[in-house]
């Protein structure tokens, strides 16, 4: 059985009532066994939840991923700012309909330019190089540490949009270190990390619409191979 005041008692417990109502409820609780028990229950549950519930925290890997995503967002914003003329989001909305067709052709043209531009002028390459350099900073390199490809490969299933090739080249002198999720080309890219001598090699894989996405797939040190 519940006291009809139980909703107000809860609001009182949560500090949602003013002083006048609070005094009123306190008077009621003094004479009401149900509400006294309810207040005790509320208090006990809150204490237990605050004390015993696992205090989840964002992992360093997640912090690094977010920081990298914000870096990329920042750099793409500054690239847009360098473009001559009006920024696209400042265009008055009623123009959008009329300009739609022109816009589409412009995007198509931009894509063609992007595809024909030599590799090193491609902003994506900047992003890959940026991601590679970032990975060399302490604690950024690896999300899943393992020299066993049977551990590294399945890890990617929940963390990236592609399932990359994870091979073992230890006999050839390229030791598997582990894997990492990175953010490239607006998607969750998979990075397989190898070591050769003192060099760290990041192999990035991501799905680019119909392109294999592997035209610049490996970096040794800071030089492209």
């Amino acid at each position: 059985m519940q006291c009809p005041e139980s909703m107000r008692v809860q609001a009182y417990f949560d500090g949602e009532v003013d002083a006048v109502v609070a005094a009123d409820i306190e008077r009621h609780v003094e004479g009401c066994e149900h509400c006294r028990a309810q207040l005790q229950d509320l208090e006990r549950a809150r204490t237990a939840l605050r004390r015993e519930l696992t205090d989840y925290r964002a992992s360093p890997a997640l912090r690094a991923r977010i920081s990298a995503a914000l870096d990329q967002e920042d750099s793409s914003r500054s690239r847009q700012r360098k473009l001559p003329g009006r920024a696209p989001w400042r265009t008055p909305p009623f123009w959008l309909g009329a300009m739609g067709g022109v816009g589409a052709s412009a995007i198509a043209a931009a894509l063609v330019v992007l595809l024909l531009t030599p590799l090193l002028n491609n902003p994506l390459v900047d992003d890959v190089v940026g991601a590679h350099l970032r990975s060399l900073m302490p604690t950024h390199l690896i999300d899943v540490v393992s020299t066993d490809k049977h551990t590294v490969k399945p890890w990617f299933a929940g963390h990236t949009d592609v399932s990359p090739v994870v091979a073992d080249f230890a006999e050839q002198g390229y030791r598997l270190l582990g894997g990492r999720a990175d953010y490239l080309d607006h998607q969750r890219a998979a990075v397989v990390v190898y070591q050769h001598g003192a060099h760290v090699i990041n192999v990035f894989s991501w799905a680019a619409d119909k392109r294999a996405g592997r035209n610049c797939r490996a970096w040794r040190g800071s030089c492209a191979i």
Partner: protein
Amino acid sequence: MDDKRGRFEAEVLPHLDAAYRFARWLSRSPAEADDAVQEAMLRAFRGFDALRGSDAKAWLLTIVRNCHSTAMRQQQRRVFVPLPADDDAQEGEAMIAATPDPQESAIGRDDERTLDRLMASLSAEHREVLVLREIEDMDYREIAAVTGVPIGTVMSRLARARAALKSRWREDNEAESHAVP
């Protein structure tokens, strides 16, 4: 790093742990929570100019909640894209379940903790309102803003969630006392 990034890091980034805790209780796995939070931080950064003056924590948690529901809706549609390779073809899908994800085993351990397990057994609606009220210490108005329902609904939902947790707790205690010889 320009001014926007600096202001974002000062005002929004301090709530990253709260965002993650909330996402972790909304979703079923750490990986899902990671993704929802990363997407939410990116969207928050893009829409940062809209924040002005309002409460950054409630605002961020609202975005986390939206990202999580979007991800849930898209999950069925998402296609896992394997890159073609000879090596891959031989090893096949069987490998994926072969080694347990370390984070998955962490959930297994969490399950041993009574309150975590009881919380996990509640509905998403009840988990959400309990976490916002008891862990994040938000008032009814803020909870209403994050969950997109009127304050009256927050109050009744909170009452039902607390009652549900209490009855699970009681059932659990009874089961335990029966189990002990």
